[in-house]
């Protein structure tokens, strides 16, 4: 034995998995740190939504429905804040998760973890937890900024929560589908492109009323439009449970998650 050696018996086998809740908690904590540590992702998840909220509330660049020209920031923020919350969900559950998972697949992280005691469903549960934690942080930050701009939300928290969860499920399914089927570089490009397209065409800051009727009919079926319109109905107009929006999100969630489960390739 060399003098750098480890005492005999150090490696004597004593295998065993940690308790499942502990494994998932540890994995979720790691995934959350990875999401938050990623500079480019923070641009998408924090900087852009905050900037858009502040900019479009303060400056009268887009004509908003039911907001007279020259109205104060508080009227504009009532329109914008729900859309920005929807954008925050999109940025984390879809764009951020797709890019991170795509590169984890490319670098063999998913494969290595598949050989660990953590079951695959446990890994997916941990990823979902990480997405939800980041979303909570985003919602807290954006809500604080919106309040500072004079936001006065209405509606019940249950409807809002349900919309956010349904939106997360819909975007997660689509993001994982992309990450599990495309090359990592293609996922990076496509996820960013989709983010920009949905930002513009999903009723986030540009009202869908601006688009021609036929186009608008299609855009309204997008998950981002359902989420931002649903949140706006509740938070601005005090609507009850927005079943239409929840229905659209539910269909996207089922389709996206089923397709991801079917086509996701782990390596």
């Amino acid at each position, binding site marked *: *034995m*060399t003098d*750098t*050696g*480890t005492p*005999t*018996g*150090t*490696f*004597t*086998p*004593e*295998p*065993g*998995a*940690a308790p499942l809740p*502990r*494994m998932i908690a*540890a*994995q979720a904590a*790691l995934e959350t*740190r*990875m999401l938050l*540590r*990623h500079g480019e992702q923070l641009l998408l998840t924090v900087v852009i939504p905050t900037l858009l909220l502040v900019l479009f509330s303060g400056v009268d660049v887009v004509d908003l429905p039911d907001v007279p020209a020259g109205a104060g920031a508080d009227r504009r923020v009532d329109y914008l804040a729900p859309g920005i919350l929807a954008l925050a969900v999109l940025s984390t559950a879809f764009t951020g998760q797709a890019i991170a998972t795509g*590169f*984890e697949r490319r*670098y*063999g*992280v998913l*494969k*290595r973890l*598949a*050989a*660990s*005691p*953590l*079951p695959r469903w446990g890994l997916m549960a941990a990823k979902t937890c990480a997405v939800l934690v980041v979303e909570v942080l985003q919602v807290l930050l954006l809500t604080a900024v919106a309040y500072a701009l004079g936001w006065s939300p209405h509606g019940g928290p249950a409807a809002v929560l349900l919309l956010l969860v349904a939106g997360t499920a819909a975007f997660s399914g689509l993001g994982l589908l992309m990450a599990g089927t495309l090359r990592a570089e293609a996922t990076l490009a496509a996820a960013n492109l989709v983010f920009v397209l949905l930002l513009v065409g999903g009723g986030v800051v540009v009202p869908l009323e601006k688009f021609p009727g036929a186009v608008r009919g299609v855009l309204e079926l997008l998950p981002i439009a359902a989420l931002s319109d649903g949140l706006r109905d509740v938070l601005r107009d005090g609507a009850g449970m927005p079943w239409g929006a929840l229905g659209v999100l539910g269909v996207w969630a089922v389709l996206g998650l089923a397709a991801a489960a079917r086509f996701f390739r782990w*390596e």
Partner: protein
Amino acid sequence: MHSAPAVEIAGLVKRYGSEAAVDGLDLSVATGTVTAVLGPNGAGKTTTIETCEGFRRPDAGRVRVLGLDPYADAPALRPRVGVMLQNGGVYPGVRAGEMLRHMASLHAHPLDVTALGERLGLGGCGRTPYRRLSGGQQQRLALAMAVVGRPELVFLDEPTAGLDPQARRATWDLVRELRADGVTVVLSTHHMDEAEQLSDHVAIVDGGRVIAEGTPEELCRGGAENSLRFGGRPALDLAALLKALPDGTSAAELTPGSYRLTGTVDPQLLATVTSWCAQNGVLPDRISVERRTLEDVFLELTGRELR
């Protein structure tokens, strides 16, 4: 004491499209031993190991790891088996120590992470992100991740690829310590010296099959005690040479102009060979008397260099 083999592979076939990466491979790994799967790139080493790790489902044949089916019984096997992938498997942005602690947290009785990191020379880079570690540090982190959960069996896919001699030596020491503590080790390599130095059992793999196996000594002995090699012009009349030599000697032209005699190589044989060469106007060069290496074994079996 250990009656059941740790790994049993019988008739394994794995195809990618019409190409068979593994084509009827048999291998048995005794518990508590170090087994080296030796072969050139593309021989089927990684596919075989990844089938044992449960990543691939065999197209034919039977694989048992610790008595279980690595694909169907994967959940039961994962805590008991340590895995070092050939490359990667780590988040680019994760810190070395963070990743090792995380792998430890997935196990019930993990090793002391700090001691293990220092043991593998990772003590100084615990806070360094994975993508900024050197290739050797990345390899050693992957090795640490494979053993931190105190597995019964570890699969190391080319554990020393790209390591400098010192780091390689440290990895070898660790494998020896694992073995001393009763861990079964299966490693793939295309370094003959690694297989000779470390393993109790060597399986030489080529074209998706085990073409020879045994202890390094058995393989190197290979029936002949010694061999005499020499170079000369191509296509010498070896049959005529053999007439001058004692019975039981054999001769082969390995590659054009490169000859090997096997049998009882003694001073008389050497003298006979050189005088036969003199009579035939051949100037033998690079004359050497040597024991066989695994590289020779591989060359004889396949007619190709190992690397």
